[in-house]
């Protein structure tokens, strides 16, 4: 079985993103870029499944600019077997990303697709669900545990009410939550080895030229409303008095 893992290049999660003063976007010049953390968990999970002998090949795919090769190389250094860059200078939205990934699926015929539940830049949380829909296959979203069964796999999902377990037949799409695993550290020799692994670049129009035109248009960016500066109290008595005055404690 092949596993396809979709990853996205995003601003590193430690960076505090700032809106540009003219409201046309967020400042990304010179900012550290990384694999979307949820996607890194997806890569790790695919590698663990392969290491258990349940998959033969882990393919990582990313849709983005040439620079996304860096993140694909990182995934190769983690242990993925080969990488595909679907090259586009334009940002793609979830529906289009799902349409492109469907073409990659048709080409590669994976038994399982794993990707992060959301990218920490747009926070959309849509692409895996849309991909499963277009592919007409099951989805297990927000997954914190995966267990293979005779018929497919059992996935434990982190939902608002607790932990939900569903069983899905394969092929299927899994979207990862944070507690699925802790990704491995990449060692230097692995980075060297990853340079020799295959990385194929395909122009987005060559693989998915018939993408939907439907898009959301961003009119402006603004920083969030700051909260008014708070005050420091010195004692529990002072705190309790203040909360009672505000009517928050009786």
């Amino acid at each position: 079985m092949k596993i396809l893992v979709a990853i996205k290049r995003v601003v590193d999660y430690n960076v505090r993103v700032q809106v540009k003063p003219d409201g046309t976007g967020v400042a990304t010049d010179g900012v550290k870029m990384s694999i979307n953390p949820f996607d890194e968990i997806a890569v790790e999970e695919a590698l663990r499944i392969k290491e258990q002998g349940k998959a033969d090949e882990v393919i990582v795919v990313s849709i983005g600019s040439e620079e996304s090769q860096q993140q694909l190389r990182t995934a190769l250094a983690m242990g993925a077997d080969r990488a595909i860059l679907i090259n586009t200078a334009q940002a793609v939205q979830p529906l289009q990303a799902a349409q492109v990934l469907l073409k990659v699926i048709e080409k590669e015929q994976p038994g399982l697709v794993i990707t992060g539940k959301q990218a920490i830049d747009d926070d959309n949380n849509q692409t895996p669900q849309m991909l499963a829909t277009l592919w007409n296959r099951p989805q297990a979203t927000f997954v914190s545990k995966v267990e293979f069964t005779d018929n497919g796999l059992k996935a434990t999902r982190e939902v608002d009410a607790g932990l939900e377990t569903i069983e899905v037949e394969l092929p299927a799409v899994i979207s990862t939550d944070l507690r699925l695993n802790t990704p491995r550290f990449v060692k230097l020799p692995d980075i060297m080895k990853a340079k020799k692994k295959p990385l194929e670049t395909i122009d987005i129009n060559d693989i998915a030229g018939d993408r939907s035109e439907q898009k959301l248009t961003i009119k402006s960016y603004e920083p969030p409303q700051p909260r008014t500066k708070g005050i420091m109290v010195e004692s529990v008595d002072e705190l309790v008095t203040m909360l009672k005055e505000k009517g928050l404690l009786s």
Partner: protein
Amino acid sequence: MNKVLILAEHNGQQINQSTAKVLSAAKQLSDASIDVVLFTGDKSVADQVAQFSGVNKVNAVVCQDNHDQLAASIAPTVAEMAQGYSHIWGPSTTFGKDVMPRVAALLGVNQFSDIMEIIDAKTYKRPIYAGNAIITVTSDSEQQVATIRTASFSADKTSDGQAEVVVSELTTMAQHTTFVTLESGNTDRPDLQTASKVISGGRGVGSKENFAMVFELADKIKAATGASRAAVDAGYVPNDMQVGQTGKIIAPDLYMCFGISGAIQHLTGIKDAGTIVAINKDADAPIFEVADIGLVGDLFKVIPEMIEKV
């Protein structure tokens, strides 16, 4: 006219507050006609939705074998029903996030995720980058599929409605997906997402056993309990208590947190709280930058003292 179809959420007995919040958001659209679709094993829940004023029709789709929990089973029915509706909205909860993008894909549109403000019938504000930027976003699509950020809207409290309830059977069961179990960390405490008061603990609480203190204080003031990702990762408390970018986004009147340093991913979950109170032994913790009231102190001394004094 704006014709709205709302996907309702419930737990089998009770309508989730998220439904009342999506309804509030829908009522902000001008000249809105609102219908609801609800998937359920027990159609009595539909009567609760019918009581909201401003709802014309409740489509109760009866499901067997917990298929009402499965996005792949219910999304095709929502998409079929969506014909003729200008707005197809659901809550930005794990339920809505699972289902709505499937509906959007079936309708061939991108979804507006986590709407926090409605500018007009086709323009909204939503947070990106964990709330570090807010975008105004629009689409001229005839079918606007969206999830509503529940912390940004108050729950509709009307109860004098008399919507028509139309019952049908689910015909779009996904054969490839089966519901197995739901393991709920539910307690007798107020629900975290709707409580007016929330007491939270972080890594600083130090252990599962120490969390008993946090629970005791919460019970004393009838608050719900939450936690940071660090506390959940460390196994102190179950995942359903996590507040933040990937956990629950909440907006209580009072949010009081102990031993939480205040990573941006956590702050994004509490930004809409009325009053944020932070107790941390580190005076430089970023949580103090957003707190309305801060107290530098040892939570192991502060919590017992508070339990005594509130």
